[in-house]
Every structure is written in structure tokens, then in C-alpha cells.
């Protein structure tokens, strides 16, 4: 029976070409959008986790309230004992201390006076600690454009764009001017040993990477840190576990009314990531729904036209005694076949384009000049396991739905009228 139907479809191009084309195009779009959104979202989450939010982050309550201003005067104190405690309570996690700071980076001329200067956004990470994994996490070594990694205190990296703007080369001295944790003036000379390009617009504009201990000294932050970031094992984020951990940690410190007591936030709670993820998933859901509805209407229409063309055939089949249910189910079976073929073709093309976009990416750095969020400047698609089957859902559903709607007419034809039609 199936073989008979397939042969019929393949031999009668009018019955298959248009529906397969429609289904293929729709499925291709579904697969492509799924891969693109997965890629963009994944990169945004990974970049955000690595540079800004961690999988969970601990700050002082006062710091968390004004986090956007990087208020180091409200930073966490006693971080040494807090990190030991965290290592004991959550031994499978990696905890790293960081300090972010703003300030002015000044480049001297031969007389020690200002040659060039610009506002700097600094991140102090544990550059010289092998256990922290910060160099790998932030991909620092591979991001170096010129020069080398810092090897000793007093050596820093600055972003390549910033270095060009300030006319600084590896080996040059620069002076950082910032504020200490207590509001005092912080000024220190450093040697730029390399320039970096992260591919993150907000960082590449004016970033400076220095060792955490160097920052503690210049910013008068002994045993203090702006943030403690926690990363799950193998760097794989688990929202469920993060929620449990956050609830337990915050409950422990709830009785402490000090504004400098620690508070833990999970990745989604920071930078509006939760609402962004929710928005994007509902966007994808809505897209698929609209797509299924639109394709069903098109295929319904195609099946109606096909039905008209096959009016005689269906009539004859009914006249020779084939029951209406059988005719209807055979047409549905045909549509399943068309849906499958269209879905396979659409998935293959969609995956092909997605692989291309995964490899090459799409550079949007020009349109992110004033963006301060941790957004990668090159967006890439990501071919997920789901991408291999997601297109079949709308592909099959819409063809079957379209045929089911068009085929209802079969049940409306009565025998007397049928014979009259066949006489003609």
C-alpha cells in the first residue's frame, strides 16, 4: 500500500513538487532560526558568565544594589575566609575573586607628562594562579594580539583598540589613576606587556587586564574583592542547581543585617538574562506556531488544488467501492511522506547554512560601538542535536494538517452526485 502511494507521488510531480518545496523552505527556516538563536544565546550566556556574571556571583548587598556603577567602596571584605568556606561547602565548584574598576589610563611622554589618555575599564583576575583557570576561562592567552602574557606583578594587558587609540606598544609604561576602596586616590605605573582582542565590544573598547593582587594593592583592597564568581564543574551551567545553591547561601546570611554581608545571585538574575532568555524562547515558540499555521494554510490550499485536479480519481475510487475513510487515510499517508521528504531536504539545507554560520559567523561590531553589555562582536550559529529533528515538527504537522483540512471534502460527496459527476 505504502509502496503504491510513494510510487504515485513520485510519478505525479504535480502532487509532490510544490508541497515538498514549501515544506523544505519552511523547515530550512525553522532549523536555521533555531541554530542561529541557540548560537547567539549560547555565546551571550557563555561570554556573560565568563566575563561578568559567573554561574553564580557573590557580592556585598550594597555592591549588588549599585553593581552597574562598580562601587568598590562597597566591596566585600574578608574574602579569604569566605572563599575557604565556599570551597568547603561546594568543593566541586571553582571560586574566583575579581575586582572591576574604572579610571583613567595615562601615557607619559619623555618628560613624564601626559602624552595621551583615556577612560579605562579594568578587570583584575588571578593571572598567576594556575588553580583559578581564569586565563583559560577568559581565553586571555589566545586573545593576545601583540606581546605576551604578564609574568610578574606590575605587568598588564590592554585591549588592542585602546592601545592603538593611546598609541601604546608592548613595553610602554602607563599610569592608572583610579579610586581606592576608601575613596582615596589610586595612582600606579604599569608596563603594558601585550595587547588583546576578546571579540567582546564592551571589553575591546577600553579594557585593561591586571593581576588580582596588583589591583588589591593599588585600590587598597587587602582581603577584599568586588565579586566572587563561582563556576560549575566542566563549566556547564545548571540552573536548577544554581537556584538551590543561591537559596541555601542567602538563607544562611539572611539574619545578618549588615549592608556589606554577602549575597549570591545566579547567572539568570544578573544583567536581565532571565527575562532575555524567556523573551527569546517565547519568540521561537511564536515563530514556530506562526510558521506552522501559515504553512498549513498554504498546504491546505495546495491540497485543495490537488484535490480538484484529482477530483475524478477520488470519485472513481469511491465509485468502485473504496470507502471514504480509506481514501482519506491514504491521502494523509501521502502527506506524511511529503512532509518527511520536505523535512529531510529542509533540514539538510538548514543544517548546511547553519554549519557555515557556525564556522564563519556574522560580524556585528560596527553596530555595537556604544554597547556596554558583554556581547560578542561576532555572532555564530550553533548546530545543536535538537536541530536535526526540530524541523520535522512543523514540516510533518503542517502537511498533515493541510491535507486533513482539504480532505474533509471527501466525506461531503454523496454517492448519487458522484455517479452524476462521473457521467460527465
Amino acid at each position, binding site marked *: 500500500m505504502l509502496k503504491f502511494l510513494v510510487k504515485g507521488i513520485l510519478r505525479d510531480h504535480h502532487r509532490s513538487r510544490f508541497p515538498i518545496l514549501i515544506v523544505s523552505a519552511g523547515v530550512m527556516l525553522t532549523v536555521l532560526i533555531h541554530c542561529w538563536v541557540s548560537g547567539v544565546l549560547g555565546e551571550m550566556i557563555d561570554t556573560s558568565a565568563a566575563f561578568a556574571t559567573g554561574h553564580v556571583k557573590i557580592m556585598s548587598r550594597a555592591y549588588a544594589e549599585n553593581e552597574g556603577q562598580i562601587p568598590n567602596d562597597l566591596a566585600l571584605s574578608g574574602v579569604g575566609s569566605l572563599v575557604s568556606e565556599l570551597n568547603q561547602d561546594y568543593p566541586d565548584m571553582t571560586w574566583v575573586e575579581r575586582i572591576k574598576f574604572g579610571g583613567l589610563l595615562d601615557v607619559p611622554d619623555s618628560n613624564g607628562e601626559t602624552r595621551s589618555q583615556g577612560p579605562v575599564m579594568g578587570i583584575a583576575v588571578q593571572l598567576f594562579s594556575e588553580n583559578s583557570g581564569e586565563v583559560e576561562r577568559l581565553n586571555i592567552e589566545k586573545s593576545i594580539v601583540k606581546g605576551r602574557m604578564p609574568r610578574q606583578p606590575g605587568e598588564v594587558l590592554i585591549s588592542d583598540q585602546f592601545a592603538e587609540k593611546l598609541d601604546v606598544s608592548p613595553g610602554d609604561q602607563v599610569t592608572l589613576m583610579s579610586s581606592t576602596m576608601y*575613596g*582615596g586616590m589610586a595612582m600606579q605605573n604599569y608596563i603594558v606587556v601585550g595587547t588583546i582582542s576578546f571579540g567582546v565590544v564592551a571589553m575591546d573598547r577600553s579594557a585593561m587586564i591586571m593581576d588580582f593582587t596588583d589591583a588589591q594593592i593599588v585600590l587598597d583592597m587587602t582581603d577584599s574583592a568586588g565579586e566572587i564568581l563561582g563556576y560549575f564543574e566542566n563549566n556547564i551551567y545548571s540552573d536548577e542547581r544554581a537556584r538551590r545553591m543561591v537559596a541555601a547561601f542567602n538563607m544562611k546570611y539572611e539574619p545578618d543585617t549588615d549592608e556589606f554581608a554577602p549575597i549570591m545571585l545566579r547567572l539568570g538574575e544578573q544583567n536581565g538574562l532571565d527575562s532575555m532568555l524567556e523573551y527569546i524562547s517565547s519568540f521561537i515558540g511564536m515563530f514556530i506556531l506562526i510558521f506552522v499555521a501559515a504553512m498549513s494554510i498554504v498546504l491546505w490550499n495546495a491540497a485543495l488544488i490537488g484535490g480538484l485536479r484529482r477530483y475524478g480519481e477520488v470519485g472513481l475510487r469511491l465509485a468502485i467501492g473504496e470507502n471514504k475513510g480509506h481514501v482519506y487515510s491514504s491521502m494523509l499517508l501521502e502527506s506524511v511522506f511529503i512532509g518527511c521528504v520536505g523535512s529531510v531536504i529542509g533540514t539538510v539545507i538548514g543544517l548546511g547554512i547553519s554549519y557555515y554560520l557556525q564556522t564563519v559567523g556574522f560580524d556585528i561590531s560596527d553596530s555595537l560601538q556604544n554597547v556596554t553589555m558583554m556581547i560578542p562582536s561576532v555572532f555564530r550559529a550553533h548546530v545543536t542535536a535538537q536541530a536535526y529533528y526540530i524541523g520535522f515538527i512543523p514540516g510533518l504537522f503542517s502537511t498533515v494538517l493541510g491535507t486533513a483540512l482539504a480532505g474533509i471534502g471527501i466525506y461531503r460527496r454523496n454517492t448519487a452526485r458522484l455517479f452524476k459527476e462521473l457521467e460527465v
Partner: protein
Amino acid sequence: MKIVFLLLVIYVPGFSQTPSGEYLLDKIDQNMSSDSRVFTSKMVIHGRRGSRTVESKTWAIGEEKSFTEYLAPAREKDTKMLKLEDQLWMYSPATDRTIQISGHMLRQSVMGSDLSYEDMMDDKKLQTHYTAAVVGTDTIESRPCWILELQAKTKDVAYEMRKLWVDQQRYLPLRQELYAKSGKLLKRMELSEIVRHGKRWYPMHILFKDMLKDGKGTEFMVDDIEFDVTIPDYRFSKASLRR
């Protein structure tokens, strides 16, 4: 004769019931501005983690030149600041660097206080840069005041609008509110401990409050001040920053 006296009472602002804004600005400038001054001061910065005191000595000529040397605490000691017209340099002994402060940095806080570098540089005569109008009266610390509204008439001022509560007897502002062009209140100053220095009245204590920041503000206390003293020119050179 009586008519002449009456006319004098009407036209000489000092004798009238409500003086003109321009007259008050002139009187304020006479109190607050000087050809030159040397003073030592303390700045008590009240932050959320506690308070810290910064001590400094300042030499200034008119509204164009000033030189400040920080005396304490140890971390800031020997840091120096030089202002020449609208340019500002800072020297830090720890780095042996002279850094020019410009652009958006001028709006940053000085030593974590409620004062910006722009505020520190703002020694301009009010009369030169603002038009003024008396808009009401009030009482501060039992002293009757005129409320004076100032609107900038030049572009090179840090605040587009100011509101001053001017002591009716001493012609010195006891309160100042500084506003942005949008009308948003940015800073408030409370001036107190008014003392007589020769012909002028001068506040020895000013409480600055940055209205956009949490905290209790910054107290600026003048320990000792001398007006119209001779200051050698070398004091206002970049070379003196490193001395």
C-alpha cells in the same frame, strides 16, 4: 534735599528693602573672592564605610591659578594639584607622574569626596558668569536670608543654575543649591562658622552634599586662611609639582 535723600534710598540698592540680584552678587564676590589667598583645610569625607580626613594647603591667585598640596593621610601626602585657567594637572609622588585631568574626569570625585575636580576649580566670580534675581526670603539658623536665583550667562560654568540663600546682613550665602540644565538638583552646600577677615565675612565650614550619591556628604573646614598675600609665580608652575 529730602527728595534727593529719598531718591538715594530708592536707587542705592543697599538702602532699599529688596536689593537687586546684581548688587547681591557683587557683595557676595567681595566676601568670597580675593586677589590671592593661602589656606590650610581639612576635608572630612563621610562614606558608607566610615569617614576619612584629607588635609591640604592651597595657594590661589584670583580665579585663574591655584596650587594644592595634600598633607595627610599618608597615602595622599605630597600629592599636588595645579590649576592654570581651565587646565588641571595632578602629580603623584608614588608614580612620579604629572597627569592632566580633562574631559569627563573633571566631573569625577576628588579623593572620594562629594566635590568634583570641576568644583575644586570653580573659583569664578559669580557676577561674571551669572545673572541673578531675588525670588524670596527665608531664615537659616535664625538669620534672615534672601533667596537668589542665578542663571548662567556664559557657557564655561559647571552648573547652569544656582540657588543661593544670602545672609541679609553679611551678604554671604548660607546655603547653595547647584542645578543641571535639566533643572535637576546636583549638589547642596551649607556654609557655616562665618568669621570676619578684615572687611569680609568668610565661611570656615562648608558641608557639600552630592545629591546623586548616598552618604552624609563632605565637610570642608578651613583651618587657617590669609587673603591678599604675595605668592611667588614659581608656585604656579608645573615644575613646582615635583618639588
